[in-house]
């Protein structure tokens, strides 16, 4: 009566599967009459799709039919969605359940959107951010800013500026504009140039909270990640949920099912869409996928791209994102560029 | 019971009765006085209770009005306040109970039972300005309270507040010493000014009576074995719109009254006891003065009855008793004189009778003697032959008559010298059987008319102390007399019977019977009704009987026969 989830199964798949399980409880002369309940934040459109999938399987023509009431409930729990069918024969009730993972793909991903990842750099020390300009690469890590020049296919380190940051889960961001460089560290912002050498002058104050791993601004509450589309602002807040605000700043929803790292893709075919990691803890491997936010609910647009470990940093870059991953096998930190291939 | 005892008893009873009457009268009038006082005090207590309730009701209404018009009620009715907000209001106004209600009596907030919000208030609320009593249901039981109800401005809510009828209320009543007020609120819930009452079960009957009759009732309760622990109660039912809310009990201790009654009783007992003691002493002294002479008189009378006619009683007083003693002495003296005279006369009469009898008896034989001798004289004068015949006849006759005279003289001699009886053990039955056997032949002789013998002897032996010869002789005389009384035949009936202290022998005949006069003279020597005989037979019988210290009597009716009854004692002095 309880079915384990099948990886990659959608809600509609689950609905069809539970409908088949429901039919087992009916005799050939019994025809089910289904009533649908939705206890989740899913919108009417999605619910209708799931209901249709359920009822399609249940539909049958029988002679001398006897009507059997079936209640189909779309519920959810920590693990994901839970589809529940109750089959009533008089006072007797049979129950079928099916769990569906909470990475809903109510709409099948448009054909061809894929996430492409490309390894840029890897080192043993935690990487905070990486910026690539032509043959130069700046790497911000817990030791400081390192400037690399590509020579003969290899990167040579040509300078380092210590900018100590010995906090747990350290974060930092590089912003390049021309030759000028801004480095944001927890509680500190360093400004200067990166070319021809790295020269920075640091002051206190930063979008990264001092000694912490969160972002803070005057207008927004403390958060781990933020992403702005043309309709909504998403903030990964301290309660572990992704809060959705409309453009006026009014909270409209709270999502579960994403990790704390996501970015809005600025340009390209995936503009105004969100690249988000799956929720994880500790050392489990992350994946990153492209989402749309429809009716304040996430809609996955691409298959997830698996990563070799948890994402420790995710920053938006032109047409994509930069993801830093700690490889669970090697323990080293790897920086990937994330690009969205919209296909045909 | 002696006269003295009777007199003492009478005296004691008189004294005791008088004292008891007086004690009772005093006790009753004391009790009545106390009762009147109790009634007055209880009425005062009840009146005070009513006034106190009224005063509290007014104060309560004022406080409830304050709550009803406060901002808190607005908050409570609008839902802005928490469900138990009423508690704060109740506390502020020192109310024990407070319900804030919707107009349909649904509880919005309850101070005393916050969990009851949403349920209907069950105090039987009637809107009005006057306070009323109500029974309040609580999680842990019930209470009785004075309730006042007010509407909030705009009529959006009703505020019903109240204060419990509790020990504090009772304490506030000014109660006279010896009195107390109790309040029954529910089964097992009886309080006084100090709190719960112990042994409340003793008041259950009164409370039940008040509840059943729905009127005032009274009862007295004794709390311990001692009567002075008694308390008189008046139970007043407290009604509210026909429903009984509780019972107010006004109690008055009867200790004072009981103590006084006890004192009266003890005094009565002491006075009575002393009176009886004094009465006994006086009575004893008095009766001694009265009964002693009477006893003496009685002793004297007993002596006289025993034969000592010379008994005298000492005359020691000059009152009625003394007169009585004197009269007694005179009587005995008179009796003695009379007895002497009687004895003398009897003797003379006896002598006369004896002489008469003798003359009579002797005359018979003497006359033939005289005739014979005259005949002889005449015959002598005539021929010698006639004289020889006459002499022969005459001497024969003379000898016969002389023999007769000898017999007569012998009888008299026998009677005169009857010896003193020699007592020995004699079986009366055997003696009777033996004596009758001698007469058996005579009873059945041919020359007699048929005469039967009926013998009824007592069972077994009848041993007495007697002289068997004399007794046999007496018996023979009676049998002979009976046979003589039945010339035409009949039945001779002889009976022996045992009595308590002796034996009875009766000899009855079915002959001619005797008249009463004849009965009287029967035992007089020489009295006889027979045509023959000396008449000594019965005298001998009487003499024998008298020597045996017995009694003889006769029962007879003319034409019906006679029965002679001899009663003899078992013992003679110290013998047998």
């Amino acid at each position, binding site marked *: *009566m*309880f079915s384990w989830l099948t990886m990659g199964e959608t809600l509609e798949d689950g609905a069809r599967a539970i409908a088949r399980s429901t039919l087992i409880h009916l005799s050939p002369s019994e025809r089910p009459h289904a009533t649908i309940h939705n206890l989740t934040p899913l919108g009417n459109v999605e619910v209708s799709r799931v209901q249709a999938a359920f009822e399609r399987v249940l539909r049958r023509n029988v002679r001398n039919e006897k009507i059997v009431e079936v209640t189909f409930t779309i519920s959810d729990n920590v693990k994901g*969605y839970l589809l529940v069918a109750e089959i009533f024969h008089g006072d007797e009730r049979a129950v079928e359940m099916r769990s569906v993972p909470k990475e809903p793909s109510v709409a099948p991903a448009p054909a061809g959107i894929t996430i492409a990842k490309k390894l840029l750099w890897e080192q043993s020390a935690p990487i905070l951010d990486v910026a690539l300009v032509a043959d130069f690469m700046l790497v911000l890590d817990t030791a400081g800013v390192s400037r690399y020049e590509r020579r003969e296919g290899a990167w040579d380190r040509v300078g380092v500026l210590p900018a100590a940051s010995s906090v*747990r889960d350290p974060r930092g961001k590089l912003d390049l504009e021309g030759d000028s460089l801004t480095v944001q560290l927890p509680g500190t912002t360093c400004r200067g140039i990166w070319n021809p050498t790295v020269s920075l002058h640091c002051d206190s104050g930063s979008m990264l909270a001092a000694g912490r791993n969160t972002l803070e601004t005057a207008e927004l509450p403390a958060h781990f990640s933020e992403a702005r589309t043309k309709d909504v602002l998403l903030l990964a807040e301290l309660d*572990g949920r992704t809060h959705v605000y409309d453009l006026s700043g009014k909270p409209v929803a709270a999502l579960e099912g994403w990790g704390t790292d996501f970015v809005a893709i600025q340009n390209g075919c995936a503009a105004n869409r969100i690249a988000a990691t799956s929720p994880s*803890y500790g050392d489990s491997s992350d994946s990153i996928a492209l989402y749309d936010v429809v009716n304040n609910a996430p809609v996955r647009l691409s298959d997830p791209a698996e990563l070799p470990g948890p994402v420790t940093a995710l920053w938006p870059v032109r047409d994509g994102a930069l993801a830093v991953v700690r490889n669970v096998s090697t323990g080293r930190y790897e920086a990937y560029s994330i690009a969205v291939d919209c296909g045909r | 019971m002696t006269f003295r005892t009777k007199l003492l008893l009478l005296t004691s009873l008189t004294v005791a009765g008088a004292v008891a009457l007086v004690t009772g009268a005093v006790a009753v009038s004391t009790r009545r006085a106390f009762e009147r006082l109790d009634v007055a005090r209880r009425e005062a207590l009840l009146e005070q209770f009513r006034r106190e309730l009224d005063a509290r009701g007014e104060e309560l209404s004022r406080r409830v009005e304050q709550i009803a018009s406060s901002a808190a009620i607005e908050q409570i009715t609008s839902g802005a306040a*928490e469900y138990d907000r009423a508690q704060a209001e109740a506390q502020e106004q020192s109310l024990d109970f407070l319900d804030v209600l919707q107009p349909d009596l649904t509880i919005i907030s309850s101070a005393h039972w916050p*969990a009851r919000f949403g349920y209907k208030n069950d105090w039987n609320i009637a809107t009005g300005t006057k306070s009323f009593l109500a029974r309040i249901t609580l999680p842990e039981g019930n209470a009785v309270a004075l309730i006042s109800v007010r509407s909030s401005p705009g009529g959006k809510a009703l505020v019903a507040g109240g204060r419990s009828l509790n020990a504090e209320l009772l304490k506030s009543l000014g109660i006279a010493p010896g009195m107390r007020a109790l309040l029954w609120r529910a089964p097992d819930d009886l309080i006084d000014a100090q709190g719960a009452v112990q042994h409340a079960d003793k008041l259950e009957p009164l409370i039940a009576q008040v509840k059943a009759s729905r009127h005032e009732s009274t009862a007295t309760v004794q709390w311990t074995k001692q009567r002075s622990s008694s308390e008189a109660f008046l139970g007043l039912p407290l009604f509210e719109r026909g429903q009984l809310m509780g019972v107010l009990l006004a109690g008055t201790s009867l200790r004072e009254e009981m103590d006084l009654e006890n004192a009266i009783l003890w005094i009565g007992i002491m006075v009575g006891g002393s009176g009886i003691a004094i009465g006994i002493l006086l009575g004893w002294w008095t009766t001694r003065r009265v009964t002693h002479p009477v006893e003496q008189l009685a002793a004297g009378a007993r002596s006289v009855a025993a034969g000592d006619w010379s008994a005298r009683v000492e005359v020691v007083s000059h009152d009625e008793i003394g007169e009585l003693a004197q009269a007694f002495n005179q009587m005995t003296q008179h009796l003695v004189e009379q007895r002497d005279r009687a004895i003398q006369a009897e003797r003379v009469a006896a002598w006369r009778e004896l002489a008469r009898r003798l003359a009579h008896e002797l005359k018979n034989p003497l006359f033939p003697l005289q005739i014979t001798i005259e005949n002889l004289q005449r015959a002598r004068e005539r021929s010698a032959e006639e004289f020889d015949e006459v002499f022969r006849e005459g001497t024969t006759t003379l000898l016969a008559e002389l023999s007769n005279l000898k017999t007569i003289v012998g009888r008299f001699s026998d009677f005169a010298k009857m010896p003193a009886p020699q007592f020995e053990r004699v079986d009366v039955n055997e003696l009777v059987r033996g004596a009758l056997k001698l007469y058996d032949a005579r009873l059945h002789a041919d020359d007699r008319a048929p005469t039967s013998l009926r013998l009824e002897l007592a069972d077994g032996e009848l041993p007495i102390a007697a002289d068997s010869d004399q007794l046999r002789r007496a018996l023979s005389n009676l049998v002979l007399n009976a046979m003589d009384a039945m010339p035409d035949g009949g039945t001779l009936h002889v009976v022996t019977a045992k009595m308590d202290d002796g034996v009875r022998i009766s000899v009855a005949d079915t002959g001619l019977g005797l008249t009463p006069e004849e009965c009287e003279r029967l035992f007089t020597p020489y009295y006889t009704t027979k045509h023959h005989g000396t008449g000594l037979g019965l005298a001998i019988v009487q003499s024998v009987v008298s020597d045996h210290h017995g009694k003889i009597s006769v029962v007879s009716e003319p034409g019906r026969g006679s029965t002679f009854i001899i009663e003899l004692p078992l013992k003679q002095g110290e013998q047998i």
Partner: protein
Amino acid sequence: MEMRAALRTLDPADSDILALEARAQLIPAVFETLVRFDERGEPQPCLATSWSHDAARKRWVFTARPNVLLHNGTQWSPKGGAIELPDDRPLAAILRELAQPAGAIVVRADDGSLLGTGPFRIAHWEAEKSARLVAHDGYWAGRPFLDSIEIRMGRSLRDQEMDLESGKTDIAEVLVTDGRRLRQKGFAISITPFMETLALVFENPRVPDATREALALSIDRATINNVLLQKQGEPSAALLPRWLSGYSFLFPAPRNVARAKQLSASAAPLAFAYDRQDAILRPVGERIAVNASEAGIVLKSSTGPADVRLLCLPITSRDSWTSLADVAAMLKLGLPRASSEFEAESALLNGYRIIPLVHLPRMWAISGGVRNWPRLADVWLDPDPKVKP
């Protein structure tokens, strides 16, 4: 931080059922397990980075995480870099068990103290009174933000509130009904999902079935939640809240006073016990007594042995099975063998031996600078707090 619970010890091997919630919060901060449940109740690597089994699936090998330091600075290195477990049960059950506090890696030092691998170590422990946890500098996942956590145990809610106001504590436990009031006072309130279940538990097995059912039918859960609990809870007849199980709606909670009256005809009074000092249990208990009396059931308050008791059952884990097992253990019942959580929960609730009433969240009032509460390893203090209501 302060708490009502007074813990004897943080030793994971100690089975103190009464302080499950507090232990579930504190133990993982000090002692780690091979496997840990994530926010979704899924087992994730912790001190074990991976696991595999032999061909026969009778023996599991858990690869130990490298570079893990104990609290005394020594390396935790099990022999062979792995831990072998002979166990032929399904993996889910094994992982669930390994994730329990009792499965934590604990090294007992010579002086009797306990060494773990968690982000904090025990610097001071006074049983049932106070404790001090200090940051473990060498924690494998990075030193925690906090330097130390002072814990005061056995503090009443009132005392905790007073200490919070006077600044003696940063964290105070709060009744769900006090949240609004404390927010109005300016405190930040941290709310968990529903982590407690108010329930009636029949301790006397001889109470007739009909009486138990009658009591269940008489209770007005909606009013209890809306009025007494200020709508902070979720009325339910299920043991596990819907956010955890997803199927709580399958246990209906109808109120049928007429049917309850029929069932309770000639029922004997029941001894009813609950903690009268508890500001949640007391009004709820009183309301239950009123509901019951409407249905003809007399509940007489008892301070000693009782026929039925009102309790707060904690949800100790984001894993349904673990939570159900902990509830069963707390009530001294065996968890029925079942193929699913729903079956197990149905078996526990069968016959109305347990009558769940309302699910409640846990709530803390936190002083302005605290962030990331209640995940102790991630908590930090903002020196310049902008208090967010």
